[in-house]
């Protein structure tokens, strides 16, 4: 029977994967993909807590729904930014966007 810790471990590993993508990838869309993974991991945590720690309230699921919504908004705006940047700077690779590099 998977208990709370199992779900927490899964979400931790998923979070670490998303973190790796955010820190390591060059393509800005790939970075946004990493962010989505991290948000998913957080959602798993929320729902798991709802079931195992506080079954009486539904706040966990409500919270997860809101997070999904906001993730969608953020992905939309983020990708719009990537498009706008691509139009001006001709690149999506973040290490080539270095106008402020010393």
């Amino acid at each position, binding site marked *: 029977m998977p208990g709370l810790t199992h779900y927490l471990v899964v979400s931790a590993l998923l979070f670490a994967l998303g973190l790796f993508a955010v820190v390591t990838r060059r393509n800005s869309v790939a970075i946004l993909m990493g962010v989505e993974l991290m948000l998913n991991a957080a959602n798993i945590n929320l729902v798991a807590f709802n079931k195992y720690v506080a079954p009486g309230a539904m706040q966990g699921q409500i919270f997860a729904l809101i997070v999904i919504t906001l993730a969608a908004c953020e992905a939309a705006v983020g990708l719009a930014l990537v498009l706008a940047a691509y139009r001006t700077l001709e690149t999506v690779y*973040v290490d080539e966007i270095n106008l402020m590099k*010393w």
Partner: protein
Amino acid sequence: MTQVAWIIPLLPLAAFVLIVAAGPRLPGRGAYVSIAGIVLAGIGGLLVLGEVIRGAHADVTYTWAVLGARPITVGFVVDPLSAIMLAMVGVVASLITIYSVGYMAGDPHYPRFFAYLSLFQFSMLFLILADNFLFIYAGWELVGLCSYLLIGFWFERPAAARAALKAFITTRVGDFSMMIGILIIFLHTGSLRFDEVFRSIQGGALAGPLLTAAAVLVFGGAVGKSAQVPLHVWLPDAMEGPTPVSALIHAATMVAAGVYLVARTYPLFLASPDHAALTVVAYIGGITAIVAATMGVVEDDIKRVLAYSTMSQLGYMMLGLGVLGYTAGMFHLITHAFFKALLFLGAGSVIHAVATNNMKQMGGLARAMPWTAWTFIAGTLALTGIPPFAGFFSKDQVLAAAFAHDRVLWALGAAGAFLTSLYMGRLIWYTFAGTYRGGDPHATPDGGHGAGGHAQPHESSAVMVAPLVILAVFAVFLGWVGAESLGNPFERFIHFAGAETPPGGFGLLVLSIAIAVAGWAAAAAIYVWRIVPSETLRQALPWAYTLLARRYYVDDVYAWVFIGVGGVVVRLAGLFDRYVIDGLVNLAGWLARQVGLGLRYIQTGREETYLLLVFLGVIVIVVVRLVW
């Protein structure tokens, strides 16, 4: 007057302040204000002396600070010792100040001279009236400062500037020793006032070798200030200052302060076991007396001869105090002040006329300057101890005290007396007798003084001659005040229980006179009758001549030790400062720079780095929280 005697030093101080504030605009360009200050002080001093002779006494104290539970009081004391010194300083300083009007006439820095003179007079009078170690030390430093200012009065001359510095630094060594001594005394007796200190010492608060050490250290200050061996090197060079300065400071008053200090703190010296401290005093005095006299024999500069003479006579005074001849030492101080001031002022008159200090270029001045010459001769007779002049009585008492105490010291003193007559006779001969050897005084290099002489030297102005005459009167007649045949009133006035001068005995008297006359005869033999001419002596004993002319090489030794060896130490310290201390400071700066250069790489301008750092920070925080 006695109760308000503390006003007396304030009169020349007020003169100093006025001259500093408005010098050139004052009457006589400051000279009259200065004269007024010191003459009034002198009159005050004579009044005080009169009252103290009739038995008055004053002791004014103020609480200066409260240290824990003990109040520290300072104040002034008027007793026979300070009264006689007040009168002497007042009279001699007045005469010298009046004389300076003539001597310094035409000098561009005339007001400054009188300002410094007044400041010095204040300092000396303040020192005399002190009843505690603090005030006497303060006065000590003040007179040292004024000596520096006045020796270096013509500071544009490098020799004068150097001499002033040499005087200050050499006496500073002595002052430091004195300070240590005072601190030891304060530590053990808990007070700075003389009477409290002496009471504590009687009660045993300070005894044994430590007491001797403290006394000798305090005497160290006197060694410096009174130019005793080994701190004597500054006095000959101090003759770079104007002659009134030499007369006032380096003959009559400041150098006498050392003797006064020993007299004032006499109980301290008496309490030393086996009179060890007094023996030190006596021997240093005796050695100085003879060493200085030997150096005076080969000196050609008239002021330097008198400087060596002063050094030698101060040695006599210390000798007198050291052999328990308290009265004798003080009596010689008083008489010496008058005739030495006379001699210096006379020398100044001569220098003023011939524009040179070198005796070999003088001569025949007895005819050209009769007043100067005869007063000078009177002073010389007093100095060499020919009766019935003043110096005879005082020097004889010193020698009598020495004879009764320690024959070795008496021998030193007697030899010194012989040499004194010898070099003074030589001086008289070269300066006043014969024919004038100098050329046009304008052609010879000036001694620094503004108005030179004329083609044929002539007598000085009345303002310079009058003080000479007055001092000569003292030189002739003052000795009778201490004459035993008249009951020695001086001794009844100034004495110290346990240090009475034993009567000398007629044989010793005759011996002293004979030695002095023998010195004169020797001088005559060498210079007047030329039985053994000086050139012969110089060729026979060249090494002796060189030794004396180079002042026993003491200056050279000091230069090597302090400037040579000390210079090495100083250079090492400089290196330490530059490389270690500055190095540490520079290291701090260098370190900051290196850290900055290193940390610079964090600011990459690239967002992936910043993201990495954010998460790295989170991890660090969590780990720290978990582990700690």
